[in-house]
């Protein structure tokens, strides 16, 4: 059964979980260059397209072991 989740080392955090937060989170204090909402959509769309077109890369990217990467899974 599940135990309290351990802290996940930074290098094992699933990129997809990180991008959820980094592309849509963080405070926006407009620099001369700041990702805007439109940019985020563009990045997300191009990522999906990229992953759809490069299947093997998609596997590496998402991680071969999503359950353990995510820090706890039931």
């Amino acid at each position, binding site marked *: 059964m599940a135990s309290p989740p351990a802290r996940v080392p930074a290098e094992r955090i699933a990129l*997809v979980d990180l991008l959820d937060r980094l592309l849509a989170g963080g405070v926006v204090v407009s620099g001369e260059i700041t990702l805007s909402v439109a940019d985020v959509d563009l990045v997300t769309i191009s990522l999906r397209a990229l992953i759809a077109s490069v299947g093997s890369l998609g596997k590496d990217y998402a991680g071969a072991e999503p359950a353990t990467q995510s820090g706890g899974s039931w």
Partner: protein
Amino acid sequence: MTGACGLWAYAITEHGGGDLSRLTGVAGGTVRTVAAGGFTVLVSDVDLAEFGEVALRRNLENLTWLEEVARAHHHVIDAAIRLFPLLPTRLATVYSSTEAMAAALGRRREELRAALRRVSGRVEWGVKAYAAPRPDTRDSQQPAPAQAAEQTGTGGAGLAYLKRRRAQLTAGERSARAALAAAQAVHAELSGRAAQARLHPPQSPQLSGNQMPMLLNTAYLLDASASDAFASAVTAAATARPELRLELTGPWPPYSFAGED
């Protein structure tokens, strides 16, 4: 570094104690703090040939580049937040100078201070809810013999197949609805324990590498001291609702709660 430099911002704080000198940031840059607009900002220099507006737009579409930058940005924030409360900045916030940064921050001083107070001493936890595979999924995906009978025109077998298929589809819809309702109930329950909650769009199976349908992708802002109780609540919810698969991630710096409410 050759060419023009910009300042890549990681986080805003009102503290700034602690030793950051060994922290390496985006593109191998050395992280330092600068005073700007009444705050202390964690920054490193970036080459505008790679991080200027045009280059950035191009590079953000390069998955390898994006992953390196995202992990480096997170690495700095994750290390610094162990030293003092901070407000992470959006990925790819680049200023041309300290003066430009100070002006941008100064204009929003009160709002940023309020946001810092809101996240101070708090952490973010992520919960993803998937519809668990149904035990009878295997049957419903193998209607082949009945299908063959239907195609050869043997009416009785075809009709039986259609009835069975309709029953399966109805059962499938019912269980999908039940799983979604269960996910929403879990979200309501966990929200009650959190200072704030935020919904992220469900991740596509291609991005997550997980074939189960994702029903919810949520972030919760909690007092750091409430983390253990929250994790236990997620475990209990997972046990009570076998129709769901729950995944807990964190603790994260309060990325999802750094902006406006």
